[in-house]
């Protein structure tokens, strides 16, 4: 049979993690996963599409419910091996409207229309003889098949399962959808391609595309984090003023509006990243990603994600020195590098005093017109690191989170996270950009691109 694209039906006993596997392979957290058997009642298609063209298609199917009855019907027909698949088709045709076999029909139909079989079992529970009827039915279909041992719990019965499955399937693989990383994901796809010679090329093309897709997601995340840092650091909050001096309340309002805007930027950015990685449903079931109780401006946040006072002094000095070097260069070095030294000193003291401050509240205006209160751009040297660490932490957690997980994510954050990606050299490079973002000057697209590539490298290092 000539097929438009390879298809794979994920089948098995109820509640053995079929939906989890599909969810992981399809990067889709919308798949309903439940510990109640029979929660999947209709098969669902998960096509891998590129510009609308399907490269391969996965089917999530309901579990076998009356396998013994189906097998009994099939075995009533004494036919040779080459006719067995016709008997299965005859069963489907005869029982299409029969409510009792609804689940079996749902799972057999894609197989009979050419889908490869991926039979899923739970390797953390002992093998049982009740599986044999299901495996026998699948053998009757005559379609290429493989078995996937999913480890739902900690106990391990993999060897016993391998021995049993070996009688029915040529290929048996262990795959844990909750913990599988991207490489394991691609390895599984490669195994699936081996089921049928004709599928090797399209699945290989899909693997290449998946890599491209993964790179796209990483790049988009880096771009989102870059935008967040740039927007937050350069943000200026304005409030018009009807009188000469601002009242305490007015100053407080602008401070709180300023903080609120930055919080909003962070939330928007997090949502965007969750969308990029197809974790749209994450927030519905968990709030931990909002770093509950750990506000952007809280002390906890600063102590975990920010730089220490010492690191800040070094960072500030570096930033100042860079400016100073500019002066030295301008004056042809006749300052005997005094510019750098003074710059470093000014930068360091700025860092020291700017540790807890965010930005000044200024009253601006001109003689002709109205006055207004202004807060921003960000002055605090520690803030970009707090923001960046939080953003990278969130992005890396979302990127490596399995789409099969429905539990509340536990984030165990620590100072060590910063050490995973930020060395002295990257901090220096970042600071150069942070001071540019803070200046409010025009930031060229190329500069943002350069910053983005720093973030991308950091993100890749964290995820790897």
């Amino acid at each position, binding site marked *: 049979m000539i097929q438009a694209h390879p298809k794979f039906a994920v089948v098995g*006993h*109820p*509640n053995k993690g079929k939906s989890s596997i599909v969810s992981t*392979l*399809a*990067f*889709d957290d*919308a*798949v*309903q996963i*439940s*510990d*109640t*058997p029979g*929660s*999947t*009642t*209709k098969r*669902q*298609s*998960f*096509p*891998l*599409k*590129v*510009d609308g063209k399907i490269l391969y298609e996965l089917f999530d199917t309901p*579990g*076998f*419910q*009356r*396998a*013994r*009855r189906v097998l*009994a019907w099939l075995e009533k027909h004494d036919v040779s091996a080459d006719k067995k698949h016709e008997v299965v088709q005859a069963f489907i045709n005869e029982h299409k409207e029969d409510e009792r076999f609804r*689940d079996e029909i749902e799972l057999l139909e894609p197989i009979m229309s050419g889908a490869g079989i991926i039979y899923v079992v*739970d390797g953390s*529970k*002992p093998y*049982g*003889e*009740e599986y*044999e*009827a299901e495996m026998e039915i699948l053998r009757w279909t005559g379609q290429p098949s493989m078995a996937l041992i999913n480890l739902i719990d900690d*106990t391990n019965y993999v060897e016993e399962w391998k021995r049993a499955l070996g009688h029915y399937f040529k290929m048996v693989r262990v795959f844990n959808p909750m913990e599988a990383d991207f490489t394991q994901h691609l390895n599984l796809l490669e195994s699936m391609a081996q089921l049928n010679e004709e599928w090797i090329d399209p699945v290989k093309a899909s693997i290449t*595309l998946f890599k*491209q*897709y993964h790179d*796209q997601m990483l790049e*988009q995340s880096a*771009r989102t984090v870059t*935008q967040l840092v740039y927007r937050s650091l350069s943000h200026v909050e304005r409030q018009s003023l009807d009188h000469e001096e601002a009242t305490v309340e007015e100053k407080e309002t602008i401070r709180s509006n300023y903080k609120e805007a930055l919080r909003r930027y962070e939330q928007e950015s997090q949502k965007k990243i969750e969308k990029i990685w*197809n974790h749209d449903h994450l927030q519905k079931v968990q709030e931990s990603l909002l770093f509950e109780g750990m506000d952007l401006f809280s002390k906890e946040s600063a102590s975990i994600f920010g730089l220490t006072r010492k690191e800040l002094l070094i960072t500030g000095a570096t930033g100042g020195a860079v400016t100073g070097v500019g002066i030295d260069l301008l004056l042809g070095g006749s300052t005997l590098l005094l510019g750098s030294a003074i710059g470093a000193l000014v930068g360091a003291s700025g860092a020291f005093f700017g540790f807890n401050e965010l930005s000044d509240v200024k009253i601006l205006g001109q003689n*002709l*017109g109205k006055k207004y209160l202004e807060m921003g751009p960000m002055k605090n040297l520690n803030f970009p690191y707090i923001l960046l660490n939080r953003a990278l932490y969130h992005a890396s957690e979302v990127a490596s989170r399995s789409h099969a997980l429905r539990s509340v994510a536990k984030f165990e954050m620590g100072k060590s996270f910063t050490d995973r990606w930020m060395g002295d050299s990257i901090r220096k490079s970042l600071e150069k950009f942070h001071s540019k973002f803070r*200046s*409010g*000057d*025009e930031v*060229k*697209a190329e500069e943002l691109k350069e910053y983005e590539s720093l973030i991308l490298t950091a993100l890749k290092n964290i995820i790897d």
Partner: protein
Amino acid sequence: MNLTSYLDLYELLQEKKNEREENRAFGLEHVKYKQDPVTQLLFWIKKHTSRLKRPLMSETFSSYLYSMTLTLVIIAFFLGFFSGLGLLSYSGHEPVNVIYFMAMVVLLPLVTMTLTLLSMFRANASQSLLVHISPAFWMEKMLRFLPKNVQSSLQELKINPLLSNWLIIKRSQLLALMFSLGLLVALLGIVITKDIAFAWSTTLQVSPKEFHSLLHTLAFAWRDVFPWAVPSLELIEQSQYFRLGEKLDTQMIQNASKLGEWWKFLAFATLFYAILLRFGMWLLSMFGFKKALKRSFLSLEGVSTLLREMNEPIITTTAVEEKKNVVPQGSHYMQEVEDLDSSYDRTLGWAMSEEELRVLNDSMQVITPMAFDVGGTNSLEEDSEIISKCKGEVLFYVKSWEPPTMDFVDFLEELTRGVDKVILAPMGTVEDAYLPKAKELEMWGRKLQQISSDKVWLKR
């Protein structure tokens, strides 16, 4: 690409419409412009401008800019014209000192053009002092005198600082050009309508020869082509004027007709320094503005996403339709037993071997006259035969971790027709000492709720 397309793109991107598929389709249609993002964006703007609300922000801004510029241009022209009239005002008692006029048409343009060049280098700074001292910048603050609705629509507009700086620089050059034209018109007008005696006068110790040399240098651009537009040494000597004595030099009076010759030099100086060079600066500022526009165009927030959406393939792996499954609620089955009795009429094991069943009975200390393994590899007929042998109270072992299938439910329903009571006992694995996990018991509880038979009891 112009300011209008920039503003249209800005407004379209502000809409934040999610149209990934549409953008990709557009990208595929215009794939030949993939390497030319600006052209691709211009086509995109053309396609989508119709969906924006009228009046367009670009129309409001352009019309505001046009009327402001026109007003300022007229003001600058008349300012130049009247300044020229003032500088050239001649009462007949004293000749007109050309130094004033030269300062206005040579020195002032040279100084302001130098500042402009510096501001061009610093145009990317949002707080460039050089840009902010420009009259055009402050005049622009007249925005607040516009109607409120126009003000509010323009206040939302956040133009890239680089672009707004170049806009100011460009406009300043145009104003300066108009001012200079005003000066030239005033000069020509006065020359035509009056006879003016020009002279030069300074407190500094400058000899006519030195002054001639200075003027010769200043006239470098036209002295070879129009030598008559450069004052001769003789004219300079004749037109040197000292106020002391309150009388005109007799030599000057004798050469009165010659003193008017200065106008040619002044006209050419105005034409070259104040107009031609300024025109050059204006062209330079237009070039800089174009470059800034292109840069700002590509650095507008949302542009990189838009270009990516147009030029990167859409890869989707997710389901076309989100499925809503009905998950049964509840976990507590009403008919539950805490402990097992010491004996039952029959014991059954679902998908268990006879040996496993015996071990389970021993371990639960249950005595039974007959024990059967059902389900599993049994045929349906074998199961029916076992059911026919069952009566009274039945203890039915099931594997707690295996979810009850409809095959099991069918069996249970058939079984309950012939017996008085069924105690369903989910058993854990050997490793767990046959103890079922709480969530497994909940799963069995939910399933039995669905079956809802008063003969079936769940062992917790």
